[in-house]
């Protein structure tokens, strides 16, 4: 396959940045998208140019490190996958592919295609945990019974890998799907009940502080989420928030 790649290049956080066009040949349909970028980078290194900087780690769709807005969609045109699981067979010979970093005020670009997603970590640190006594008298987790449907729903929410595709896809750059998944996974379980009110108030406050936009229920986040996190989590967080705020 021969491709035209239009890639966002930005020297550092303060540089203006812009789209640079590259022609790339010899791309195999069975390559992953990141392997295709590896080939491009090898070409650039061979020519003495600086390679394109992009985030990646496990390359198995687990870690949530890879990002990339590909032809206007986070993680590209396929569904329920991360960029590292996207294969070049999704594209045709002669295609032009536009590759950009995830865009949000709360995700500032560090360099080229890498953005700083530590705002997600600060939301999580604000309340996305349960306090456990680790003094040696820790209770067996299995001693607290959890209904199967609740456990399954909590697990579904917990599959969020925090990649930021929800923010990237949302026209408002809202982080409601991420935050609501992190609130839900604990709110649904008895272990999370003790700090439920404090948790949802603190996490939403931090989310707002980070400069994410407001959710307008477009549903783009749910469609683009590589783990299929449901919009129901947002409704649940809205309920939790209203209940906690009016106490």
């Amino acid at each position, binding site marked *: 396959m021969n491709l035209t790649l239009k890639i966002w290049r930005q020297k550092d956080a303060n540089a203006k940045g812009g789209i640079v066009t590259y022609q790339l040949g010899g791309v195999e349909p069975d390559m992953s998208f990141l392997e295709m970028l590896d080939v491009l980078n090898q070409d650039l290194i061979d020519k003495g140019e600086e390679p394109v900087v992009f985030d990646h780690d496990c390359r198995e769709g687990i870690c949530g490190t890879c990002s990339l807005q590909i032809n206007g*969609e986070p993680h590209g045109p396929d569904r329920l996958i991360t960029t590292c699981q996207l294969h070049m067979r999704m594209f045709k010979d002669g295609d032009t592919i536009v590759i950009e970093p995830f*865009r949000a005020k*709360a995700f500032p670009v560090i360099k080229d295609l890498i953005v700083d997603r530590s705002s997600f970590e600060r939301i999580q640190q604000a309340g996305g945990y349960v306090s456990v006594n680790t003094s040696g008298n820790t209770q067996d987790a299995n001693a607290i019974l959890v209904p199967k449907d609740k456990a399954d729903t909590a697990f579904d929410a917990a599959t969020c890998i925090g990649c930021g595709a929800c923010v990237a896809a949302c*026209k*408002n750059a809202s982080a409601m799907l991420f935050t609501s998944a992190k609130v839900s996974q604990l709110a649904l379980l008895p272990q999370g009940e003790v700090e439920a009110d404090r948790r949802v108030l603190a996490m939403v406050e931090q989310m*707002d502080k980070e400069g994410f936009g407001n959710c*307008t229920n477009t549903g*783009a986040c749910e469609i683009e989420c590589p783990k299929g996190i449901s*919009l129901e989590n947002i409704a649940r967080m809205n309920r939790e*928030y209203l209940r906690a705020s009016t106490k």
Partner: protein
Amino acid sequence: MSGILKSSIARKVVMALSGLFLVLFLLQHFLINFTSVFSATTFNEVSHFMGSNFFVQFLLQPILILGVIIHFVLGFVLEYNNRKARVKKYVRFNGSANSTWMSRNMIWTGLVVLAFLVLHFYDFWFPEIIHKYIQVHPEDPTRYYGETVAKFTDPVRTLLYVISFIFLSLHLLHGFSSSFQSVGWHEKFYKGMRGATVAFSILIPLGFIFIAVYHYFNQV
């Protein structure tokens, strides 16, 4: 409780509740207007009641105007904040791949509805207020039908009303069902309501279009 109104979720809930309140108003407005199609007398009677009842005029009407103002002002605030949340735009953004046109363009369909409200107030509300409270004419319970249908002799005005109702429908198609999500309804109720909200969002504006077009052709 003190910081609740500063939060994005609280603002969205207020937006949703004011929207649901306006949906209720829209339904009663449609039902009253629809009487003009089959009975001038009924339309006059209901309009006279609405225009002269103290409870409607001095309690419900101010609440309605407050609801309209809250919905529009908050809409602009949310839009402003949302634009600030992505200062640098994408070179390519494929929104149609994952969301409806209506959901992405609520501000534009809302602005058309706002512009329509200005025209609608110019046509009916301001003349009514001047007639009743400034010029203080004696009550005439038979004037409403004639004054209303007279506006629809103008093809341009009728066309503007039709276009506005199409945009109202587009606004409702996302806004009505979305408001249940904002107030935190369970998914099973929210999805169950989806069909009803879509039917309302199409049928009520279509009904308003029918009324405007009916009175236009009735007078050609």
